[in-house]
C-alpha cells in the first residue's frame, strides 16, 4: 500500500468530530491506493463467459434488489421487491399490485437493506433470498430460480424493521426487530412518555421448509431501545440470535447526542429454542395486531390477506429467553464467525471491536455472572463473555465479515477503510482504504459456516470524485478487493443502484442451471390466461370491458377493438403465447396510467385502462421482440359515453 495512512490511535481524538462531519478522513493522496497492478485481468470476464458469483446488492432506498456478477461487477438484473417498477409493470399490473399491500394500504416503496440467502446446515442452499423493508416493516422472499418476489409479510407492531431478515442456520426463521421503539402496541400517547410507554419487539418469522411460506411465529417484548442489526448463531451457537441495540438512554429527541451518552449499550442474545419451548407451552399472549401478508399464488397472481393478533412473549414469562451483553458505544453490526463460537460487534463510536466467546457467554450464564438486570433481562458481565478486543482498529467500526482462514474484516465508516484482523487474538493484520465511507461489506459466503473467501466487497456511501460527476446526486458504489494474499488489493469499483446496504454472494454454479426460462402455458392457472390465439376475445360486463388478448411474434389478437366508451374500465389481460426463452412481449397503450406490461413467455399480466378521450388509440409491443416488432401493434376505438357502438373485435390470423 503506497498511500500514507493516518494512524488511528493518534488521529482518534482530533479527527473524530471532524471526520463525522465530513464523512471521510484519512483520504489517501492517490485515488488508487491498494490497487493491484494486474487488477484488470483479475476482474476481466471475457465476452460470453460467466462470472463466478452472483452478488445480490440491496437497493436501499430504491426498495429493490440488484443482481451483479462477480468479479466483473456487471449489473445483470434489478429484482423489484418493495417499489413499483414501471419498467416491468411490477406493482402496477393487476397481478402484482397486491404484493405492495400493507395494513397502511398500498405502499409503493420501501427502504430495502439486508439481503439474506436461505441456508441448510449453515451453508447457502440456493433456494431463496430474503430482504427487509425497513420503513413499513416487512420481509420479502424472492425465488432464486425465477428472481422474482414471491411473498411479503408485514411485521406487526414493529417500527423500522432494520435488524432483519438474517436467516438462521437451516432457514428455520428470518428475524426482525424494532429499530425505532414505539408504543407497543401502537396507541395515542405523548412522546414525552417514551421511557414508560415505548417498547421494542424482536420478531421471528417462520419459513416453511418446503414452500418457503412466511408466517409470524412469535415476538419477544423488549425494553424500548433501538434494535439495530442481528445475526443468528450457527454451529455451537445455533438456536441463538444476537441483536444489537443503541439508545439504551431511551432518548426521544436529538438522538445523535442523547443516544450517545452511555459507555456501553447492549447486544440482546436471544435463545430462540427456549422461546419455542415457551410458545409451545402456551406462554405467549396475543397482542392486538393487524398485518398484511401477500403471496404470489401458483396461478401467478399476487393476493393479500390480512392477519390479526400476534403471539408475544413477555421475558418474565419465559426466563432464560434473553440476556443482555454490554457492548461499547452504540453498536451497529454484530456478526458471528464461521465456527459459530465468536460474536464481533461494531460500536459506531467505540475505540475497540469487542469479540465475545459463545462458550464464555454460556459459562457466565451458568455461573449467574450478572451485573444486574434491565426489566428482568439479566445483564452478563462484559469481561466474563469477552474473548478479546481489537484495540484502536480505526474509526467508526460498523460491520464484520469473515473469510475461510480465521480472519475478520471490519468496515470503518469514519476512517473509510477495511481493517483485517485475526479472530483468535484480535491482532490487526492489514488495512485498505475505501472510497468513501464504507457501510456494510461482504465476503462471498462470509456469513456461512464455510466462506468462499477470495474477495471482500466494500459497499460505499460516498463516491465524490470516483466517477464522472452527474450533478448533485452521485451514485454509490461497490469495491471489489482481493483477500487471497497477505495484503488486501483493490481490483475494481463499480456503481450501484440506490444505496447498497448489505449484500450477499453465492457461487453461480448453485443456481445458474436452475433458472426458469419460460412459464408453461399449458399448465398456467392464471384465470385470465388465453392459451390459444383462437380463444382471444373481448367481453363487456356493464362498464367493465375485459380484453383477453394474446401476444406472439409479431402480432396481438385481437388487434382491432371497437365499441369502447369513454370512462369504461378496460382490463387488458395479455398472455404471452411464446414458449421460447428470452422472448418477452410488452404492452403499452396511449394514456396508460398503469405502467406498461412486460409479460414473460407463458405468463399473463393485466393492465387497467380507463379511456378519457374519444378517438382511436394505438397499442403496441414495447419489448423489441422480433424483426417485425414495429408491426406488433393494434387499435382500440373509443366512442363517447352512451353512443352505443357495438362491441366488435377481430382475430387477425384467422381472418
Amino acid at each position: 500500500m503506497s498511500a500514507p495512512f493516518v494512524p488511528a490511535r493518534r488521529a482518534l481524538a482530533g479527527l473524530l468530530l471532524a471526520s463525522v462531519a465530513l464523512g471521510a478522513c484519512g483520504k489517501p493522496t492517490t485515488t488508487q491506493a491498494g490497487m493491484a497492478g494486474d487488477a484488470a485481468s483479475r476482474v476481466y470476464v471475457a465476452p460470453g463467459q460467466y462470472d463466478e458469483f452472483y452478488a445480490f446488492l440491496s437497493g436501499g432506498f430504491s426498495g429493490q434488489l440488484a443482481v451483479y456478477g462477480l468479479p466483473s461487477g456487471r449489473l445483470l438484473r434489478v429484482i423489484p421487491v418493495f417499489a413499483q417498477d414501471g419498467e416491468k409493470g411490477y406493482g402496477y399490473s393487476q397481478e402484482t399490485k397486491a404484493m405492495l399491500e400493507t395494513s397502511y394500504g398500498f405502499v409503493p416503496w420501501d427502504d430495502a437493506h439486508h439481503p439474506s440467502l436461505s441456508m441448510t446446515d449453515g451453508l447457502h442452499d440456493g433456494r431463496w433470498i430474503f430482504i427487509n423493508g425497513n420503513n413499513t416493516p416487512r420481509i420479502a422472499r424472492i425465488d432464486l430460480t425465477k428472481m422474482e418476489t414471491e411473498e411479503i409479510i408485514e411485521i406487526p407492531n414493529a417500527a423500522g424493521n432494520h435488524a432483519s431478515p438474517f436467516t438462521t442456520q437451516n432457514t428455520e426463521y428470518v428475524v426482525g426487530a424494532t429499530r425505532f421503539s414505539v408504543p407497543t402496541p401502537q396507541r395515542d400517547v405523548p412522546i414525552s412518555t417514551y421511557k414508560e410507554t415505548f417498547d421494542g419487539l424482536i420478531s421471528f418469522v417462520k419459513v416453511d421448509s418446503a414452500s418457503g411460506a412466511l408466517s409470524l411465529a412469535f415476538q419477544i417484548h423488549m425494553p424500548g431501545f433501538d434494535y439495530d442489526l442481528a445475526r443468528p448463531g450457527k454451529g455451537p451457537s445455533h438456536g441463538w440470535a444476537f441483536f444489537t441495540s443503541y439508545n439504551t438512554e431511551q432518548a426521544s429527541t436529538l438522538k445523535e447526542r442523547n443516544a450517545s451518552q452511555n459507555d456501553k449499550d447492549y447486544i440482546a442474545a436471544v435463545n430462540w429454542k427456549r422461546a419455542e419451548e415457551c410458545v409451545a407451552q402456551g406462554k405467549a399472549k396475543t397482542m392486538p395486531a393487524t398485518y398484511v401478508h401477500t403471496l404470489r399464488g401458483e396461478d401467478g397472481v399476487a393476493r393479500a390477506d390480512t392477519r390479526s393478533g400476534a403471539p408475544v412473549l413477555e421475558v418474565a414469562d419465559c426466563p432464560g429467553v434473553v440476556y443482555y451483553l454490554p457492548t461499547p458505544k452504540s453498536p451497529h453490526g454484530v456478526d458471528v464467525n464461521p465456527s459459530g463460537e465468536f460474536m464481533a460487534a461494531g460500536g459506531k463510536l467505540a475505540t475497540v471491536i469487542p469479540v465475545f466467546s459463545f462458550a464464555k457467554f454460556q459459562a457466565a450464564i451458568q455461573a449467574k455472572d450478572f451485573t444486574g438486570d434491565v426489566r428482568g433481562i439479566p445483564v452478563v458481565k462484559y469481561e466474563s463473555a469477552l474473548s478479546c478486543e481489537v484495540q484502536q482498529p480505526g474509526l467508526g467500526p460498523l460491520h464484520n465479515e469473515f473469510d475461510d482462514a480465521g480472519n475478520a474484516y471490519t468496515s470503518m465508516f469514519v476512517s473509510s477503510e477495511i481493517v483485517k484482523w485475526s479472530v483468535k487474538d484480535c491482532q490487526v493484520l492489514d488495512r485498505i482504504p475505501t472510497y468513501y465511507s464504507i457501510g456494510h461489506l461482504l465476503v462471498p459466503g462470509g456469513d456461512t459456516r464455510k466462506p468462499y473467501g477470495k474477495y471482500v466487497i466494500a459497499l460505499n456511501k460516498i463516491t465524490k470524485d470516483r466517477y464522472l460527476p452527474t450533478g448533485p446526486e452521485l451514485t454509490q458504489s461497490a469495491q471489489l478487493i482481493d483477500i487471497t494474499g497477505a495484503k488486501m488489493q483493490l481490483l475494481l469499483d463499480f456503481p450501484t443502484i440506490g444505496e447498497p446496504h448489505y449484500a450477499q454472494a453465492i457461487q453461480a454454479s448453485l443456481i445458474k442451471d436452475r433458472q426458469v426460462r419460460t412459464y408453461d402455458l399449458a399448465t398456467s392457472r392464471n384465470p385470465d390466461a388465453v392459451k390459444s390465439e383462437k380463444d382471444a376475445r373481448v367481453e363487456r360486463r356493464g362498464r367493465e370491458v375485459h380484453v383477453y388478448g394474446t401476444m406472439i411474434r409479431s402480432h396481438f389478437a385481437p388487434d382491432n377493438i371497437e365499441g369502447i366508451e369513454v370512462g369504461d374500465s378496460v382490463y387488458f389481460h395479455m398472455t404471452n403465447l411464446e414458449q421460447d426463452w428470452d422472448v418477452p412481449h410488452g404492452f403499452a397503450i396511449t394514456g396508460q396510467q398503469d405502467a406498461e406490461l412486460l409479460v414473460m413467455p407463458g405468463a399473463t399480466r393485466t393492465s387497467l385502462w380507463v379511456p378519457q378521450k374519444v378517438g382511436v388509440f394505438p397499442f403496441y409491443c414495447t419489448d423489441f421482440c422480433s424483426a417485425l416488432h414495429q408491426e406488433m401493434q393494434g387499435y382500440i376505438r373509443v366512442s363517447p359515453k352512451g353512443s352505443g357502438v357495438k362491441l366488435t373485435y377481430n382475430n387477425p390470423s384467422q381472418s
Partner: protein
Amino acid sequence: MMTKSTRLLLAAAALALTLAYVFPLWHIALQAPQYPEGLGLYIAVNQVTGEKPQDLNSINNLNHYIGMKVITPADIPELRFMPWLLAGLIGVGVVAAAAGRRWMLYGFATLFVLGSVAGLYDFWRWGYDYGHNLDPHAIIKIPGMTYQPPLIGSKQLLNFHATSLPATGGWILIVAVTLAVLLSVREFRLARRAPAEA
C-alpha cells in the same frame, strides 16, 4: 439353407430394428445467432418431436414468417402406419432366420432396401412440401428462396443453419439394412458354389 452364422446375424439385424421404436430415426438441428442453444427436431417412427420440450412449438412459430405450414405430427399419416410396416419387416426377418430359407432372406433384404428408399423419398417429399408450398402472403418473401431442409447434410436457410443427419434409430437401420444386403450376397455366393443344396 442359410449357414448358422447368417441365421444368427439375420435374427440380430431383425431384432435390432425393434430399437427403432425407442430411438429416433433422424435429427434436424437448427442454429441461428438468436438461438445459441439451438433448436432441434427428432423424427421417430411414429412421432415428430422437439429436441427440447418447446422446440417444435418455437420452430412452427418462426416458420410463420416464411409462410411454412404448421408442422402437426397428427396430420402426417405415415407416422401412424410406419410402426406397423416396421413390425412386418421385423416379422419377415425373424421368420426368415427361423426357417433358414435363402429366398426368405432375399425377400427380407429386398423389402428392407425398398422400404428404406421409400421412407427416405417420403421424408424428402414432406421436406419438399414444407419448404416449397409456402403461404403466398408470407411475411418474408425472397424471390427464388425455398426452405427445404437437406435430407442429409447442412444448408443455410436465412439466419438458420440446418443440419440433417440420421439419429440413433437411423444408424441402427442403416447398419441393419447393410447387414441384410451383405448376408444376401454371402448366401447368394454360397448357393452358386453349392447349387444342389438350395
